[in-house]
């Protein structure tokens, strides 16, 4: 199965990777810069590795340090490939994507966001403003 969705661009670039989906507001500070793992106790994604993933979450949350959270991850070599957000974007996360130079898009309503599942192969084109979702093992 394969489909495309139109998105708004928060930070330009083109990247692709496997989707890691979280259905709640997400702060970058939940990721350990030393290994790229989400290691917050009782986190639904505890143990998940964000390295080279396309991170999908409805919007960000958290303190002002979110501003450079992604940059720290990038410098440590444990950053996601791209980020997809829902309808809106957490203002501070835009700067985060800029500093880290990671393609970031948003503008998907709840229904569209729900179409994306863990493990989908996603191409994020934050130049032209679309994402392409590929799911193995399902008919076109």
């Amino acid at each position, binding site marked *: 199965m394969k489909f495309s969705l139109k998105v708004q661009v928060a930070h330009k670039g083109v990247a692709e990777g496997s989707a890691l989906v979280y259905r709640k507001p997400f702060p970058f500070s939940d990721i350990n810069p030393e290994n790229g793992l989400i290691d917050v106790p009782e986190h639904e994604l505890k143990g998940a590795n964000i390295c080279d993933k396309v991170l999908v979450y409805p919007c960000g949350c958290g303190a002002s340090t979110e*501003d450079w959270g992604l940059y720290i991850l990038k410098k440590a070599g444990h950053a996601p490939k791209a980020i997809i957000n829902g309808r809106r974007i957490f203002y501070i996360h835009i700067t985060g994507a800029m500093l880290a130079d990671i393609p970031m898009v948003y503008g998907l309503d709840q229904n569209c966001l729900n179409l994306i599942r863990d493990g989908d192969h996603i191409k994020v084109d934050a130049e032209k403003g679309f994402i392409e979702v590929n799911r193995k093992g399902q008919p076109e």
Partner: protein
Amino acid sequence: MLTLNQEEEKALNGGYGSTIQKAMDHLVKVGEALGARRMVKVSRAHLLSMEVADILYELTYRMLEKVQVRIPTTTNPLAVDLNRAGEMNIPRDIIEAMQPGIHRLTQLHKNAGVLPTYSCHPHYLHELALGQRVAFTEFNVAPLANSWFGARTNLGGQTDALASAVTGKAPECGLYLMENRWGEVVIEISGEVEPDKFDSSDYGALGYWAGQVCVDRIPVYVGLKKDISSRQVEYMGVGQVLAGSLGMMHIVGVTPESPTMEDALGRGEPEEKFVFGKKELAKVYAELNTAKKTKVDMVCLGCPHCPIEEVIKIAQLLYGKRIEKNVRLWIGTSQPTYFLAKQMGLVDIIEAAGGFVLCNVCAGTGLLLRFADRLGVQVVANNGLTLSGLVSRRTRGKVGVYFGNIEQCINAAITGYWEGKKHEI
């Protein structure tokens, strides 16, 4: 399509030097990301100074190098009071490691003309007005500016606030525009939780729960008491941002833009309605009380900084008492509050009891994020929810947190133990 005026073009093309160019470039990129059509003037900015990490200095230096801020620019607390670190029993090597960073940051502020408020409350220096555009970072300040004063700011980060400070501009998008400020969901506070008797921590819990259920949709609260204070709204705002992407709320009859429910909703229908009752309140307390042991190593009040009424309450609770020998009690305040408290004899009462009333610095959150183990802190009690939302989560549970009201916190400082939770499930 973002259109710039002549002056903004010139700034973007380097006509005012490379720092201003970087600042304008940042504002343009954010504006393009959010569909702004023009830049607007902002009249105040508020920066972050608490993080001890080099990255904060790097980002700040990038935007303040060889320039002066163009609008009154305040800043939030520093990480630690270097002059009192010894008596506060903070290991010397931590202080020595932090000292150069704090000095170069304060020097940078001085050179750039940043007002050294070092306070969580920039409005203590400049009142904010309805419709006034400002560029504030910090998760307590921005929602308060929007929701209590009716001023307008996005939930910007350090770079956003700095870029606005040196240019006096911000892209017109997000919460600067009325169309993005309307309430979208309604939260009704059920009578069963007795909102008239809410403590500071209950307001924080409410905001946190709202952040979880609203996600990115602006809430309209109904059923709160009419004489709610700015401090209580501030706690709600902190909760909202720690749990969701919500820099704004409406409290009908309180938020200047929302005298009625119709005004709050922009004459539209709410997308969804929620009820905040006993079950919801208990759920938040269960989630934010992460400590396992009942022995408390530290009590941290004033994150965000205590207003004078909280310092009065703390002094009343501590009058003639002595806190447990091995417990640290740190209370963060801003300059006006500190001097008032000093004059009123409150600082002496609290410090005679063994606590520290701090001024210009963070109540401890910044230090705990990095040095909790060196400070010997495994369990900390607080009444705001920053420690639960930040310290406990970021230290991956190594620091356990108790979250309750001021009485419970002071009681823990005196006895050395946390005594029962107010809200059992």
